[in-house]
């Protein structure tokens, strides 16, 4: 097998010294981690290496300043492998200077240290964390793992007064930032404070008063309350005082924090815009006339249905009954709205302030207000649907009677049955009546279902956008765009220019994760709003007159 040596780019310009690295068994490759400079005491070096408890660190090869000799020596020398504790020496293979059988692979140590590999596991990228043991260690994974596990080796560099002077990726200066350090210091008390407030809030929410049946029912229907509970959970995850060690947890926390931050800032922007020129007052003032307008349109629609809609001939009596029934409802609704109108501005003003908590709250609020204002449409839909449903069931059952069959509830199938004469007579009469009344009920049902569907679509769009804001991994996307080496799908190689007669030199770059994989892997799981039924099932339900609730909320996943 060809000998492969991974050499960090930062050590290309280092002074002469001894190479320290690790040998990967079975792959005939060595990963060089750092260069120890002259002068040094070999005993101290060995002690230091044992101290930083690098398992299987081997001291191999000498780095001499001229490039030419590097290649020859790197290919030639092979030191012994020492295990921590025991003195087991294993001679490396291919000690001879066979220049053709050596590959030098240059790698950027900083990028490899900071990146997180996502090997594709059955077509799904899966970030390997230290806690889970990978089933199959691939070659690239072992190289990355080798570099990452040698972190204690990088604590000392050539400017420190330690026993050894080394060059590695940190030797140009330890990586750090004042702001990050300050934030880390400040975060602990802030986290504790927020956790305490959140526990107060959750205990308040789960108190007995708020948990009575009617309040529970209302709060489960209002999407604002749902969003509130969801955000509380998120904040609890983010503000937990324990540090996130695994990569997954860190990314989850960071994503939630960034999306919460963006959400709140967008909400504040919206609030500042809405309250600036008393736009909220203007909005409240247009709300009542808008509701009036909707009611007037509905009345006209009902008058049209009570006449001869689209040239169809309705059953006059039933038509008048249904029309008057719905008209009375609208009248009640309008009176209620007019009763509320003096308070609407004040309510809207205070409720609009809750948009400070985030844009998602504003959208959920809008969805709830729409639901409340179109409550009468929902009621009409329910009445129309129930009437139509009863008509259809009655018709189907009487149709079976007409043919001499019966539905067997026990066997869940249609059986033949012999009816008495008077049963048949009454059944046929009822069937005829229902059949001739069907167009009227069907038309009312159709009109109100269409109105209800329009409202449902609008609410669905709002819920989908809330869901999108909740679950989109902004931090991971930002990382992918600006620090693409942090999320790695794999590696890629490039051949560097070379002279004839020298070993092959390759450059190993990080292959960043695809944008679609980033979104798929790091999506925050939400109570996502998705259509419960397929199109076919929906159409079937509409035809039979069953009540449809097209959007269903998933319960929050517990990870």
């Amino acid at each position, binding site marked *: *097998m*060809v000998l*492969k040596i991974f050499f960090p780019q930062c050590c290309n310009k280092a002074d002469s010294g001894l190479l320290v690295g690790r040998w990967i068994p079975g792959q*005939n490759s060595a990963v060089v981690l750092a260069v120890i400079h002259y002068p040094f005491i070999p005993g101290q070096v060995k002690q230091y290496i044992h101290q930083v408890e690098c398992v299987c660190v081997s001291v191999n090869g000498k780095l001499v300043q001229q490039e030419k000799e590097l290649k020859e020596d790197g290919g030639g020398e092979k030191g012994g492998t020492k295990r921590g504790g025991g003195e087991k020496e294993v001679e490396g293979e291919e000690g001879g200077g066979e220049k*053709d059988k050596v*590959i030098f*692979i240059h790698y950027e140590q900083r990028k490899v240290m900071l990146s997180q590999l996502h090997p594709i596991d059955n077509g799904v990228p899966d970030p390997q964390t230290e806690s889970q043991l990978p089933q*199959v260690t*691939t*070659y*690239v994974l072992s190289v990355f793992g080798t570099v990452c596990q040698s972190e204690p080796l990088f604590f000392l560099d050539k400017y420190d007064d330690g026993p050894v002077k080394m060059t590695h990726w940190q030797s140009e200066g330890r990586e750090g930032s004042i702001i990050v350090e300050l934030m880390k210091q400040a975060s602990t008390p802030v986290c504790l404070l927020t956790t305490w407030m959140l526990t107060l809030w959750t205990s308040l929410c789960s108190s007995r008063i708020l948990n009575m049946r009617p309040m529970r029912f209302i709060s489960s229907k209002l999407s604002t309350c749902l969003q509130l509970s969801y955000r509380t959970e998120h904040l609890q995850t983010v503000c937990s005082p324990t540090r996130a060690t695994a990569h997954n947890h860190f990314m989850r926390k960071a994503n939630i924090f960034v999306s919460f931050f963006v959400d709140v800032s967008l909400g504040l922007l919206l609030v500042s815009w809405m309250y600036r020129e008393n736009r909220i007052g203007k909005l409240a003032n247009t709300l009542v006339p808008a509701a009036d307008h909707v009611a007037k349109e509905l009345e006209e629609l009902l008058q049209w249905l009570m006449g001869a809609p689209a040239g169809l001939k309705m059953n006059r009596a039933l038509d008048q009954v249904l029309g008057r029934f719905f008209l009375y409802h609208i009248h009640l609704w309008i009176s209620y709205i007019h009763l509320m109108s003096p308070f609407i501005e004040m309510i809207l003003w205070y409720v609009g302030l809750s948009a400070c908590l985030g844009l998602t709250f504003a959208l959920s609020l809008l969805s709830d207000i729409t639901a409340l204002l179109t409550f009468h449409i929902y009621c009409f839909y329910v009445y129309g649907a129930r009437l139509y449903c009863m008509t259809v069931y009655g018709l189907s059952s009487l149709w079976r009677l007409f043919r001499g069959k019966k539905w067997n509830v026990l066997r869940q199938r249609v059986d033949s049955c012999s009816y008495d004469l008077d049963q048949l007579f009454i059944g046929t009469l009822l069937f005829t009546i229902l059949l001739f009344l069907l167009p009227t009920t069907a038309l009312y049902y159709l009109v109100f279902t269409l109105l209800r569907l329009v409202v449902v679509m609008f609410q669905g769009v709002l819920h989908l956008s809330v869901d999108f804001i909740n679950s989109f991994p902004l931090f991971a996307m930002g990382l992918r765009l600006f620090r693409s080496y942090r999320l790695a799908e*794999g*590696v*890629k*190689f490039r*051949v560097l*220019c*070379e*002279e*004839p*007669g*020298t*070993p*092959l030199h*390759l450059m190993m770059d990080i*292959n960043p994760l695809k944008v679609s994989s980033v979104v798929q892997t790091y999506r925050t799981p939400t109570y996502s709003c998705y259509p419960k039924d397929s199109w076919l099932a929906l159409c079937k339900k509409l035809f039979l007159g069953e009540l449809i609730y097209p959007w269903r909320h998933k319960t929050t996943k517990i990870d």
Partner: protein
Amino acid sequence: MQNGDQHYSMEDETYTDIDGKAISLECQSHSGFCREFTVSSAKVSIGRVMAYTCAVWLSAYIIFFVTENTAVLSSAIIITLVGMMVHIHFVKVDHETLLIIGSLGVQVSSSYASGRESTDFIEMGKIKDIVINEAIHMVRKIKDMVINEAIHMVRKIKDIVINEAIHMQTVIYYLCILLKDPSDPEAVSSVVPLFQSSKPRLNCLVKVYKSCQEILAKC
């Protein structure tokens, strides 16, 4: 260019892809066990670009003439620009490269017309073999259905009709990498086809195949 590598492109033989368009193959041998093959497809032809643009704008002008709405014109411009950008960034492949490094792995990369590169590296430990596979490429034309019907109806002229029927389908060859399952080294877990956009013909594939087999045999 490097004086060290052997760098040669096949000038004496012109290669074509399965549709008949001219492509070029470039082989670079960086070392005894490292070779790179680049297959370049035809570039974006200016004639086709102009034809599409003219078609879109002509129809936009006609619609504008009918409806007198200027938004139609601006939307046509935007559609053309966005369509062209999407095409050169996501659809049009300029060249595909296969870099094989003995005992390390195989790297497959496609480079798009806008310069974007999409790379995939497969380790040697996962590769079982590199082979040329055959596939039957159905040419979906009305002609075929008519010929097929003729086979059913005219059974007398069996020989001539069947021969013609086989010529109507084309057999294509593609180079692919067989991956092995880590748990079962004998079974082939999946197949990665190479040069999917350029689709070179058998003569080109055979050269690449021979070089790859030399390297795989060495390591």
